[in-house]
């Protein structure tokens, strides 16, 4: 029996739509599942107080602070270093085997499992450098983890800037540094920003590596050498120990909402920037 091409076409399109709708359904289900159980337990108290009684009561303020410190510091270190490295590699050196090697290395390292960074950090930062389980150890570990991604995405973004821009800048009498900052970086910003946002997302979600470098203390981190528990780690511990499912769901809800907001922010700012430049 010969099936008419139009029929296969229709079946195929239906199958593709089914697959896509199912995928989106899974996403919506996960979000709804967490928020439905967690949102009722979100309150002002949850965001502003510390956990009590092994986490069964109280809030997650130290975890929010901990997440901000660790992630903020990690990105504050990795972004300048990564972007600077990318700028140097593309604008100040010639293409050579060394730069190709560095690019390959960064690509590989961007794909290395985060647990290996955790292995490295838990021995090098925590013990060898004597920082102990601390915000600093965690942030440095995370910084090394996201550095390759930032280098690669920045490099791609910078290379995508048309040669013409650079030539015109020189033609107008600008120095290299002026060209880099005012022309190249400005055009490459959406791509660079994407890399940074990706890194922020990865840092917020990171769990295993942080438990072994930043620790899992419940208290408010007051210095860089204090241990801190991030929201992801808190959710993991709460849900695995089963101490308080409502609090676990609530923590997960905060995590998901934060991710949603970051994604939205990145999306919106990218569109605005692209609209401005084009």
């Amino acid at each position, binding site marked *: 029996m010969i099936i008419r091409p139009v029929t296969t076409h229709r079946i195929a399109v239906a199958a593709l739509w089914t697959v896509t709708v199912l995928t989106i359904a899974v996403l919506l289900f996960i979000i709804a599942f967490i928020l439905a159980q967690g949102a009722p337990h979100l309150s002002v108290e949850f965001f502003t107080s510390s956990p009590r009684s092994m986490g069964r009561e109280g809030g997650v303020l130290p975890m929010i602070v901990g997440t901000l410190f660790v992630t*903020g510091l990690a990105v504050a270190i990795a972004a300048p270093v990564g972007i600077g490295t990318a700028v140097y590699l593309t604008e100040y050196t010639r293409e050579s085997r060394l730069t190709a090697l560095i690019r390959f290395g960064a690509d590989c390292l961007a794909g290395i499992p985060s647990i290996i960074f955790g292995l490295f950090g838990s021995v090098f930062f925590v*013990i060898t450098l004597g920082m102990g389980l601390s915000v600093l150890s965690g942030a440095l570990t995370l910084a090394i983890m996201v550095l390759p991604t930032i280098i690669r995405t920045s490099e791609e973004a910078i290379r995508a800037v048309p040669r013409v821009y650079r030539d015109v800048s020189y033609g107008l009498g600008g120095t290299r540094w002026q060209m880099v900052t005012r022309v190249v970086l400005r055009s490459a910003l959406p791509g660079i920003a994407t890399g940074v946002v990706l890194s922020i997302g990865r840092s917020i979600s990171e769990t295993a590596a942080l438990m072994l470098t930043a620790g*899992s203390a419940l208290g408010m981190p*007051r210095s860089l*050498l204090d*241990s801190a528990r991030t929201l992801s780690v808190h959710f993991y511990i709460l849900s695995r*120990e089963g101490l308080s499912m409502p609090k676990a769901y609530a923590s997960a809800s905060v995590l998901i909402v934060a991710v949603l907001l970051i994604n939205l922010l990145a999306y919106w700012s990218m569109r605005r920037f692209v609209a401005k430049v084009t």
Partner: protein
Amino acid sequence: MTSARTIAIRALALALASIACLPGCRKNDRRVLSVVGSTSIQPFAEMLAEEYNGRQDELDVEVQGGGSTFGIRAVTDGIAQVGMCSRSLKPEEQFTAISIARDGIAVVVHPTNTVDGLQLAHIRALFSGQVANWRQLGGPDRPVRLITREEGSGTREAFVKLVMGKERISRQALTQESNGAVRELVQHDPAAIGYMSLGLVGQGLKSLKVEGAQPTSQNVINGSYPLVRPFLFVVKGQPTADARKFIDFVLSGEAQGMLEREGLVRAK
């Protein structure tokens, strides 16, 4: 000509940078006591630390998990002042151990499992894989699903020492990394058997009688329930002054009472 946007971005960067510095710049006038180790002891230690921190201002007790052996490593490497260990120390571990409580190890099964109690030899046979079906022990006709803890867990090491002896735990045993995960699994799987901290069993599970004795605090105290392990605070050499203060609090009648209310047994 710097646009408003550039100024804004620079200001934001400056603000972020200073926020990152702030915690490090704060004058640290309180001392921190790091207590690290067993995930079985962790919830109880956190509860006591919360109580202790609330009562005075000069010492901040920070409790973390990681497992009993991690706690010992942390003390060895100097990351922590006090390690929490839920098994007795091995001979090669030369530390000062202070018993702060005793905890039974409960052998738990699904509530619908018809088996009520087992001899140690049976438990050993189950966990080494020799007994593969519940039917062989008078239970329902189901293949046995073993749940165990990860290798560095004090609970596991105590279980191995008290029950398994020289025998290895079966390779088929599912490995979970916390008491809670063990409880979750056993609660929902009629064929499962696992072991966990007696103080954390709660509802929804059946704790088996071992050698005829019910797993109660009474039987732990009078010795008829054989699966008991110490909760230890471990220090290198002598405890520091801060450590001593916290340990004294933990050993006080009031703190021991708190532990008892949560399901533990007092240190002798």
